[in-house]
């Protein structure tokens, strides 16, 4: 059966509040849109931005379809950096595409 190519994904896999882990060994290589320093880190979904053409496909001449959900993911700074010097309430918020996230 031919894979259905819809421009709009069906539903977001995660919802605000969900714990997520950024993939540590992603299948994606090359021009990626997820910073390496977050790989393997656990955060939580702060919000869902919507669905966008996949930039990792667009970067190599693809059509970016199907679209990917983009999330705003929140991380505790003290959990990201061993010697974080700021407050325990400090946060880092990063835009991450769904195919980089797994349940945390």
């Amino acid at each position, binding site marked *: 059966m031919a894979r259905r190519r819809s421009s709009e994904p069906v539903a977001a896999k995660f919802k605000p509040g969900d714990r997520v882990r950024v993939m540590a060994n992603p299948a994606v290589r090359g021009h990626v849109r997820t910073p390496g320093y977050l790989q393997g880190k656990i955060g939580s979904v702060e919000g869902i931005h919507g669905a966008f053409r996949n930039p990792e496909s667009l970067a190599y001449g693809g059509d970016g379809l199907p679209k990917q959900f983009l999330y705003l993911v929140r991380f505790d700074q003290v959990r990201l950096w061993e010697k974080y010097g700021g407050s325990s309430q400090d946060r880092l918020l990063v835009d*991450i595409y769904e195919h980089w996230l797994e349940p945390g």
Partner: protein
Amino acid sequence: MDDDHEGHPHPTVQDAPEQALFERRVDALQALLIEKGLITADEVRQAVEEMDSRSPALGTRVVARAWTDPAFKARLLADAKSAIAELGIDVGAIATIIAVENTEAVHHVVVCTLCSCYPRGLLGYPPDWYKSLNYRSRVVVDPRGVLKEFGLELDPDVQVRVLDSTADMRYLVIPARPAGTEQMGEDELAGLVTRDSMIGVAKTRTARAR
């Protein structure tokens, strides 16, 4: 020209070999597109001039309106692009803008660790430091230390929220309205808003400092 006269150096820009390569590639691509009749040199010039016409002044108008009109601020925080359009500012087809608000309790600062994502349609070209590896690699690890270097020392009770805009979102920080500005109109208020305060590495000018 990189001469050192009158005792102080005049910095110049030296094209790096890689830059020259990419420039040649862009030139070749542009020449080809023009030759094939897909674009004209005039369209390229117009697009460059359109981008050059963008400046932080657009952003300062948005912030000043948000300070004076709570309903506008609510719309700006909910859907920045349409709220900004109310002021006659079109941020462009590609950009999706998200506005975040700095208060006495929360301070946002924006970075793009992967490249230089920036709300160009609203603030114009990003400053060089925003694109530097130094800023991009350090502000996520030690935001308070980096902000201190910008002259902004935050109280430990203030929550710092670093926004790493690595994808399709472009962030605009609405700085906190300075005290003593209750009588000021929108235009005067816009004059207090700086580019850096809309990135989050600085506060606004104070009413007195003007």
